[in-house]
């Protein structure tokens, strides 16, 4: 479903040149679940950004469901974010002025599908926030905010969910709850790529990819 072919990403030039990704290749099947690990500066977040169209490649190709997505223009990227790819961030990134339900509805506002409120409610029920839908982010705990962010990421039924350190800001208990949620989503067929520092989080994935200096140095398959 996802093919990453010999991608490189270089920032700056001359003496300031930094190679964030170096001729990296990777494939992911539908329903797959990859955890990307590695030390700081190894290129984990850059990898996630280039897959999600948030950053441009220096060379190489990213192909999602047969469509090359690394060279899309702005309008095509908007289309990508509206249906194919969704993000879950470490900082949750919810809009402070909106309630949990409204945050989940936000992607639908932008793509003009107004009639999916029941779907948003169902997702919030699914992440255990059925009774907190009218609460604003500042009235929710970190774990609850992340669950809202996950519900928001799923409301458009994306083919791929990219999660950047989704438990990075949480205590162990809340972190586990979020990882349980990702497990459940994956079991239901959701394809996930998760960047993490947390070995426990990585063990939940079907495959662990270890990066160092922008290259894959190890790939570990986790047993079911």
């Amino acid at each position, binding site marked *: 479903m996802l093919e990453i072919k010999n991608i490189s990403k270089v920032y700056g030039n001359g003496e300031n040149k930094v190679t964030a990704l170096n001729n990296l290749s990777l494939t992911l099947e539908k329903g797959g679940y990859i955890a990307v690990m590695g030390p700081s500066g190894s290129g984990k977040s850059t990898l996630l*950004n280039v897959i999600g169209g*948030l*950053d441009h490649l220096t060379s190489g190709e990213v192909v999602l469901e047969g469509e090359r997505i690394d060279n899309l223009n*702005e*309008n095509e990227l*908007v289309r990508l*974010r*509206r249906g194919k790819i*969704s*993000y879950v*961030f470490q*900082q949750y*990134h*919810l*809009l*402070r*002025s*909106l309630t949990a339900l*409204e945050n989940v*509805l*936000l*992607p*639908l*506002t*932008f*793509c003009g599908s*107004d009639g999916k409120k029941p779907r948003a409610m169902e997702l919030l029920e699914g992440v255990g926030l059925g009774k907190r839908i009218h609460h604003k982010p500042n009235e929710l705990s970190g774990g609850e905010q992340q669950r809202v962010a996950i519900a*928001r990421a799923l409301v*458009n039924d994306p083919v791929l969910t990219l999660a950047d350190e989704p438990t990075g800001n949480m205590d162990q208990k809340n972190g586990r709850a979020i990882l349980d949620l990702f497990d459940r989503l994956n079991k239901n067929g959701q394809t996930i790529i998760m960047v993490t520092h947390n070995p426990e989080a990585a063990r939940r994935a079907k495959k662990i990819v270890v990066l160092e200096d922008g290259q894959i140095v190890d790939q570990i398959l986790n047993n079911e």
Partner: protein
Amino acid sequence: MKLYQVVLKDILRRKRRVLYAILGVVIGTMTVVGILTTATAGQAKITAQLEKYGANLSLLPAVKSFDTGLGTLNLGTINVGDNYIAEDKIPQIRQITDTLIRKYRPDISTEGNISTIAPTLFIGTDVKGNSVVVAGIDPEEESQIKTWWVVSQGKYLDGADQALLGGQTATLLDLKIGDRLDLNTTTFTVVGILEDSGSDEDYQIFVPLSTLQNAFDKEGLVSSIDVRALCNGCPVEVIATALNQDIPGIRAVAVKQVAAAEMGMLEKINTFMLAIAGVTLIVGGFGVFNTLMTSISERKKDIGIMRAVGASRSQIIKALVYEAAVVGAGGGILGYIMGTALAFAIGPIIFEGTAISFVPIYLPVAFGLALCIAVLATLYPAIRAMKIKVADSFASL
């Protein structure tokens, strides 16, 4: 959920910041509305005052005078032409005057008479052994021109055989209300005495025109005609030229009185005040621009979130323009209210004793102006916001 609802909720969260932006617009529109409202009231007052200066066109018989002489010996002056204007020329005079006013001021009513035309017949006669000038007037038209006339005793003319006396005439001739006054073949009754105005009129006697014409056998004749076409921009000079060309036997003179000068002065004051208002508006616009720039930089993350969940660039711009519209609309309405209040406060100081009133037409003006400032001030920040990269907006955190 619609985009405008997202914007409104965000505005409610950032009430204080949005209020600062609204305040920037209010300052600009308040000044403009305040100045315009004051100027409107001032103009009305000055126009009303100017009307008291009377006619702005004088029509006299086209009499030509020649000095005659033999060598250094002066043999006197020869007058060529009639000393009177035929009264039947008045309809033609009115037609020329009204047509030209309508042409230059299409906003003025298209029906009925516009100009005031007051014919006068002057007769020098003898009353109780004193030489007196008697003026035959059309009481109604004359009262329109001589707005400064105040009847101190009795009443104004409302009958054929009535006489109105200048203040000094009454004293010098020892005449009172109800006294009879014989002028040639007709006897008049004194019905009113005017308050002194400090002019020749204080020594004159005013009677209805037709009665005086009959009494002195001057049917259909008048000595002069005063025309008042007082309105800002009325083409007095053009009217005078047209009358001189088209009506033989008369000499029309545009009375270049204080009116033109005062109107010109008022226009200069208006221009100056509007220039101040314009500068204030620009300053207000910069205030809004600055507030929105700060606001957008503060909301870089929110814009990044919206982009990440599927907002297009045009939707981001639309959201910012919605916010600008709220700032503009709020600023426009508040600016109108506060500007009118400002006019109520400063108007009577600038134009002494002027009554200021609400000018409803300035509400849409203020609204439109405020909207324009807010939207224009949003353009650059919006373009900058449009260029924010999603990854950058999160990386900065």
